[in-house]
Every structure is written in C-alpha cells, then in structure tokens.
C-alpha cells in the first residue's frame, strides 16, 4: 500500500513537471510580452532593461529552471503586467471566489441532476424520461458561456430578478454563474444516477420491500436512492476539479473576480508567470483529486495494486 502511494505521488509530481514545461513553452509561443508591457515608442534601452529585469534576456531553459526553483519554495514570482505585485497575493485574493463559485456549481449539478436522474429512472420510457434527457443533454451540448448569456438575458435583463454580473449582491450574484457552470455536468450525473437507480430498482430487496407493501416514495428515496448514490457521487467528486477550471469562461462572462478571470487577463497581457501559476495550480487540483481517488480505491479494494 505504501509503495503504491509512493509511486502514485512520484507519478503526480512528474505529471506536474511535464505540464509546467508545456505551459512554460506554450506561453512563450504567443509572443513577446515586452510588446504589451511597453509602449510602442519605448526606446530600445528601456526594452532591454525590462527584458533584463524580468529575466527574459536569459535562455529559456534557465528561465524555466529559475521559475521551477522559485515555485517549489512557494514563490510564484511577480506579475509583470500588474506592476510587479507578488503572484501569491494575486492568487490568494481570487481563489476564494473561484472555490465559492465551483462549490455552488457543484451543488447546482447535484440539485438538478440527482432528482431528474431518479425521476427518469422511475418513469423509464415515459415523457419524463425523454424530457429529462433533453434537459440534461442541453446542458452538456451547449457551451457554458452561451447558457450563461441566455440566463443573464432572461433573468437579469428581461425579468430583472438577478444581477447580470459581479459579486456585489451576495447570494443573488452567484446564482447565474453557478447555474451556468454547474449545468454542464448535469447530463453526466443524471445518466449515472438513472442507470444506477435502474440497477437498484431491479434488485431482490427492492422487490421484497414492494411486496411487503412499503409506500413507493419510501422504497425509492429510502432504499433505492441511497444505494444508487455511490456511483454518481464518485463522479461528482471528480467534477470538483472540472468546475474549478471550467470557471475560466464563466467568470469572464459574469465578471466574477476569480482565478479564471485573472487567467484571461494574464493571457491577454502575456503575463507568463501568472499564466503558468494558474495553470499549474489547476493542474495540481486535478492531479491531487485523482491521486486522492486512487488512494481511496486502493484502500477500499485491496486487490488494486501498482
């Protein structure tokens, strides 16, 4: 077991290193950041000074080695385009908003997908089944920004119930971005719930409960639903990471001041250290959650070994 965990941790670190190298290289493909950092008529002497200040005059492998060296000590560097402020502070100020949005989106996914999943399983091949599938599939097939803009138009502009954007109005502010972000995962969770429910509904103990005259709602919600939750909940643990990273577009559309919004700004400004830090942070979330799930599986099922 210990060997398994050790090897999985090594794999995770290797994956992070590869990701960091890819991000580091790709960010530089987008062009010279000095072109954006400095005005058009900046003298060459100033251009060179700025290159030197940010280490851009060094070979790329030295830049990478320096970056990784600082990163592992918790120093993410300074944000070039934000006047040299520490990136750690920038991320710390935005991360809570992103986590809050992802958490709300997770709840939205569960709140929509689980009841629909149960309903369509119980009413299999009925109009509910087909309607539920359509509702869920719309979420998965339509881009989240399009869903977001439609929601914004309907609930903020036409009905005036909710704010269009920002995070000033407390709970009201998070509803639209949270629904737009969480709706994407509804289809997958709903289908997992449906198939899991159908499987449980077909078991002997459920048939026995019905024969004994137990009310149908009690059979479904007390006996079937709880047992059917295992599979969708495993998946929902994983979509936490998807929701964190999926916030990039939604945060931009809804002016939600989180990491996704910062990432877009950083890309626009070619602020490489900020881009790298955010992408590596997101990647680390993914890898950590996968690692956690793998370790839990190994713990729960001793037959799983590396």
């Amino acid at each position, binding site marked *: 077991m210990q060997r398994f965990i050790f090897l999985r941790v090594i794999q995770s670190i290797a994956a992070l290193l590869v990701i960091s190298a890819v991000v580091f290289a790709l960010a530089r493909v987008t062009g010279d950041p000095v072109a954006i950092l400095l005005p058009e008529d900046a003298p060459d002497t100033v251009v060179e000074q700025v290159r030197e200040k940010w280490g851009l005059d060094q070979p790329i492998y030295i830049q990478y080695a320096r970056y990784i060296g600082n990163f592992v000590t918790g120093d993410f560097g300074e944000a070039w*385009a*934000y006047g*040299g402020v520490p990136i750690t502070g920038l991320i710390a100020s935005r991360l809570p908003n992103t986590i809050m949005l992802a958490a709300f989106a997770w709840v939205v996914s569960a709140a929509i997908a689980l009841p629909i999943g149960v309903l369509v399983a119980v009413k299999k091949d009925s*109009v509910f089944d087909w309607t539920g599938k359509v509702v869920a599939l719309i979420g998965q097939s339509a881009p989240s920004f399009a869903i977001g803009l439609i929601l*914004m138009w309907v609930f*903020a502009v036409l009905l005036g119930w*909710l704010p*269009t954007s920002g995070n000033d109005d407390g709970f009201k502010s998070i509803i639209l971005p949270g629904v737009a972000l969480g709706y994407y995962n509804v289809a997958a969770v709903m289908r997992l719930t449906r198939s899991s429910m159908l499987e449980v509904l077909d078991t002997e103990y459920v048939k026995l409960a019905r024969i004994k005259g137990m009310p149908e709602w009690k059979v479904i919600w007390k006996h079937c639903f709880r047992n059917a939750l295992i599979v969708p909940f495993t998946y929902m643990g994983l979509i936490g990471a998807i929701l964190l990273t999926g916030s990039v577009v939604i945060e931009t559309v809804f002016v939600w001041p989180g990491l996704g*919004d*910062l990432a877009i700004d950083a890309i626009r400004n070619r602020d490489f250290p900020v881009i790298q830090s955010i992408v590596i942070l997101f990647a680390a979330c993914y890898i950590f959650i996968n690692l956690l799930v793998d370790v839990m599986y190994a713990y729960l099922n001793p037959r799983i070994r590396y």
Partner: protein
Amino acid sequence: MSKAVSLRTAIFGVLALALTVVVACGGTAPAEPATQSTSGDSSAQQAPAAQPQSQPQQQQPASQPSGQQQAQSQAPAPTAAAAQPVGMSDASTGGAAPTAVPEPTAAPAMTLGEPVQADLRVAITPPYAENLLGWRVGGTNQGILQPMQEALFQRDYQTWEAKPMLAESWSVSPDGKEWTINLRENVPFHHEEDTFGVSDFVFSFQLWSHPEANTGFGAFWDQILGPEGDDVRSFTTETLGQAATVTEVSDSEMVWNMNRPELWIPFYASEATTDPLIYSLDYWEKNGEAAYAESPVGTGPWRHVSYQQGAKLEYERAFDDHWRINPDFDTLTFFFAEEDLTRVAMLRAKEADIAEIPRELQGEIVDAGFAITQSTLPAFMVWVGIGGQYLEDKRNADDPNTNVLVRRAMNHAIDRDALNEAFFDNKMELMANTGWHPTDPSYDPAWEIPAYDPDLSRELLAEAGYGDSGPSVEFMSGKLVGVPELTEIAVPMISWLEDVGFSVEAQIGEFQPIRTRYRAREMNSVLWTHRTGFWPAGRNMRVYFVSPALAGAVFMYEDPITEDLFSRWQSSVDETERLNLMKEAGHYMYDQNATIPLGFLFAEFGINPEVIAEYSVNNSYFGGMKGHEYTRVVRQ
C-alpha cells in the same frame, strides 16, 4: 389517468419552484425602458454646462421621430476649419503668454431638482492590466486613475485646446528650453495633509521617468531629460522631490529645463497623454509605494474608495468645493466587463448608466430606448502602412513599395466607402493623409481622399513597369484593442489589391509579429493595418514617420526630406516656421502616397437617458474612463 396527474404535479412543481425563486430573490421586473429623448429631458432640466461646453453627438432612442433620428445618427462630418484647435498649434502650446485662469465651474443645478440617482456606474472593458500604481503599468491603465489624479495641463475634449489644470500659467524662454510654470496654490491632496507644490511635481516627474516605470511617453521624457537627467531617472530616497533640471523658485513656481527646445510641454504634460499624473510626495514619504497600490491619493474631484481587481473600482466625490468642478454624482464606479454582451446586458438591466457598446450592437441598444453618444473628436486613427520605405541602410531598390506609382495604385485600389459602410456603419471619418486630421493647423483642406478607381490602379501599375504580372507584396493584419475590425477589413482590401494585379500573401492573426518586424525595420514589401490614438500631426510624425536617428518608433516612412523637415520642426522655436515645416512635411507625404490612409474612428458609448443628462465622451483610448466629473445627472 395517473400519468396525467403526475404531469399536472410536475407542472405545478416547476411553477412553485419558479415562484419560490422569485420570492426568495425579492425581484421585480424592470420598468419599461425610457421612450423620451435625452435632449428633450435635459434641455429643460440640466444645469448650465461647464466643460465641455457643447453637447456630444448622440444617437437617440428609437422612439424619437424618425427624421430627427436620421439626422442625428449620420456619420460625423469632418470638423470645420473654424474649429481648429488652438491647442494643437504652436501658438498656444508655446504658451508664451500666461494663460488665464479657467472659467469658474458652474455649480450643479440644485435648484432644478433632486438627482434621480446619486451613483454613476460605468461599464468598460478592463484596462490591459489593472493596477493602481499608474507609473508602473502605464498606457490605458492610467485612464482608470484619472478621476482622482490630475495633471499640469488639460485638453478641451472638443477643441483639443490646452487649458490650465494644476499649472495656472506658464511661459517658455525664447530658446524653447526653459519653461516657467506657476502652479495652482492651495490644492489639497485627498489625504488632506498636504497641498500640491513643486516638490510633488518633481517627485511625479521622477516616477514617470524612472527606468522601471512603464509610461506611455517614456521616450519623450528621456529625450528632454538628456544626459543631465540622471537624478530624475534613478532617484533615491534622499533625492525624492528634487532634480537639477527643475528649479524651485517658490512652492508654487518652478523653472523646468529641457535638454532641447520643446514647445509642446502643455501637450505632453497634459492629462490627454498617459503619463503625467501628479502624485503626493508627502503621502509617499509617510506611507510608501504600497499605500499607493492600496489607497492612492490625488488632487482630482473624485477620491478613491475601494478597488476589487477584475471587477470594479469605486470613487466618491472628494471635496465639497473642488477647485475645478464638483461632480454631479456622489459616487463613480467602473465595472470591468470583458465580454461585450455582458456590458450590453448591464446597460439594459440598468446596472450601468454608461457602457462601452461595440458598433455592431449599438442598433439594439437604441431600439431598446437607450442612446449612443460619441466623442466630438476622433479617438482612433486607422490606416495601412506601406513597409520598406527606409533610409539607404535598409532600403531595397527592388521593393515595389518604394515606387510612388505602386503606392498610388494601392491607394486607388481600396474602396474606402465600402469599408466604412460594411464594417463601421458609416461612422468612420475618412482620412486623406495619415496623421493629419482636419482640425490640425497643418492640415491642408485641398487634400483629397483617394478615390476608388481600379482602372487607374491598373494603369499606374503598368506605368510602374508591372504590365503583365503585378507586384508581390505581403499583407499583415493583427488585432489591436479599440478597433476589433482591423483584421476583418484586411480581407476585402487584399481582395481589391489582387483585383488590380497585386500578388498578395496574407498573414492575419496576432499583432505581435508585425511589431517585431517593424521595430527591426524589416517590413520590405509588406503592407500592414495599424491604428493609434488621436494625436497631433507632430506626434504622429515622431512615432511613425522618422528614422531611429530621430527617435522614431515604427519606421513606417523614412525619407531624407521628411527627416530634415521634422528635425528642423523639432528644434525650431518660431511658431510660424514650425507650422510651415509641418505643413510641408504633410504635403510631401501626401504627394508621395506614403501610406494608405483609411479614417478616424470615434469613441462611442451607450447611455441610459433616464439617468444621464449630459455626457461628453473623451476622445482618446481612455474613452469612458475620463471626464466623469463633467457628466450631468437627470434631475426631477
């Protein structure tokens, strides 16, 4: 039966859920959008206009009589010669005579009723990099600071004329190297422990000129400082607020020495450019740079309240009796919304009173009862550069771009009217000579916009020796903020060039490769789309049309004749001579077909006429960020 019951139950459930959401949110549907015209409301109710003095052009809501709407939504006519900006001419920028104190600002018209709203909310695209340290981020970022920070001079939004701001009066020595400036006295900073004085100016100058600063006119400050200005460029704690190039006569009078003659100080040191905001030395010494990042101060009519990076920046009215103007609104909030449709939604949901609306969505805003208002002077200049016109060291004699006949052929191959109609809704003011607007004193009204004449283009190419196979050129176009159409207009232009015989290799995408090549002066046989802000011809010459020897930056046109003219213009202190030199340079470049001029674009914003009685859009990159102290509220 049971299925029907279940269906009814489901529908009831959905309705109950929707009702619960409504009740929980306490929301109500918004009122119908206004159908009254802005001018109709405001003409009777608004306070006497202070600055600017005339109404901006407004496209009124759809409910107006159609005739009126048509008249007002026409493309902006070129400004008449009579409106020539004194500020662009050497006569005023030289400022030999002390400038009068500005007219007292009229107080908001409290007698005309209570404001319908205390808060002014403006939705704009985020600046490149949001930061409250203006000298570190520079460029458009400083626009969001200008409600609270002032400069020595200001420019009239309509006439471009130089006006006093924190400089009350000024004069320049006969050799153009020594500026004596009298500063406005008793102007407090927002922390109210200091008033503006010479040491604050010197300290601010040190910030703009510091090597780690990222200010828009760094090259200019570098030039006028010269080798003597090292105490400004690399200040230490001990020398803050002191510089050998600035002599403090008294706390409110200083003599500013230049390394070379410079008559345009009232332009470069004005709030119209990006750099020269005035910071408090006292605040810095007491609190350090970090305090400026958290809670900056200035002398402006708005005081910083809070800042949430990526979302919003809040100001409030700074003083009850500001020396320049007391804003009509109590607070000013900028919302930074990247997505166009979000800003449209914010305006339509009445969460914003002024919003930056892309041209293609403006019709929808007007149809919904809102108005579009635009700057009275352009904010952008758009053209196509013809690369390869370098001095001998980089010139390639085989480059077709160096042939004036080929350049003329290019100019007549482009259908500017079609571009204007298709991409700019006929709102672009067509340009005859790149860099010269009709309001510039050195503009010649005889200049004509090149006519679309493909046959003439073919004849010119034949005359240039390209009878059978046309010249081969590369056409590059990249995205630039402010004019998203830049890459789109490249497509028909390439097609028109090919139609008259050019062989064109297209490269459309990012602007960065273009910049890399023009900085290296490697644009031989290349055409590229470009845009800049609205600047005087002399500034455009310096940045675009001179060689590295004269501190050019883009090297779009280099010619011994224009080099000589610009050099003489820069060092001359005779206003008439300078004007004639700039006219001569303009004529020469016009005759040479140095570029493919396209047009001037205006800054445009959507406004809610139920709240905004008067709003004059600033004619610069800063668009909706500046001048909100002059925005007037509708009063009941």
